[in-house]
């Protein structure tokens, strides 16, 4: 699925308009706990997977951007209408992470994506 299509499906807005590029998204990972994101996504051996992954979180602090940066995931979607602070947006630009936000809840956002064929990242997942 194209990122633009994904954004349209849940009426998402971008906080980093200058970084935006339309790319293919095939995988997603949901968590508010960044330790889980770090260890599970580090088990993925195929770097192509994380290139096409979106991190879905309700955590609107710098830590979700840092986590994405450590993993080479370049899209973060904030759910439940979370509004990032200026500092977070600045860091997203610095780390080249596309930062999106939607009013949709985490479960519903995941359901919408799952219906469209997006699959969740899990331990040692293969393409």
């Amino acid at each position: 699925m194209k990122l633009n299509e994904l954004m349209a499906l849940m009426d998402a807005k971008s906080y980093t308009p200058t970084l935006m590029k339309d790319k293919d998204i095939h995988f997603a990972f949901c968590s508010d706990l960044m330790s889980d994101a770090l260890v599970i996504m580090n088990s993925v051996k195929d770097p192509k997977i994380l290139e096409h992954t979106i991190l879905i979180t309700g955590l609107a602090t710098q830590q979700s951007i840092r986590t994405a940066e450590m993993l080479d995931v370049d899209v973060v979607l904030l759910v439940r209408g979370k509004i990032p602070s200026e500092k977070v947006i600045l860091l997203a630009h610095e780390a080249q992470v596309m930062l999106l936000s939607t009013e949709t809840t985490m479960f519903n956002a995941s359901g919408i994506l799952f219906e469209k064929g997006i699959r969740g990242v899990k331990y040692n997942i293969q393409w």
Partner: protein
Amino acid sequence: MVKEHQIIAGNFDLAGRASSDLKRLLKHSAAYPRLFINRVCSASYEAEINVVIHSVGGYMTYEVESDTIELNFYDDGPGIPDIELAMKKGYSTATQIAHLNGFGAGMGLNNMKELSDRLTIHSSPRGTHLQMNFKVGERDV
């Protein structure tokens, strides 16, 4: 190459800055496999967050060689009273502020152990020294 970064206790705005710096350095050097860079930096980030959450402040150093990396984290206390207990998955003494920042679920030390090739911890009430060593290996290809 050796570099040092200060880590400020309780400051979540700057938490992760040292690990970001390391990540960008390794990425630009183009000398390491991507999987290796990701596990080094994720482990570094967990350790940095630990210093921010649990200590009164400290610093980290990294030493980058051609196929090995050594990370050292030093803080000035209050120390880990029971390292074995702290290594248990899910055991945590973190406070609400850590949870609000997406950490503090008792995963950090375990994740560091899993991501690094060697983890050693020395701790007393006067401070903790955590060292992680990484070597490019089969798991990174």
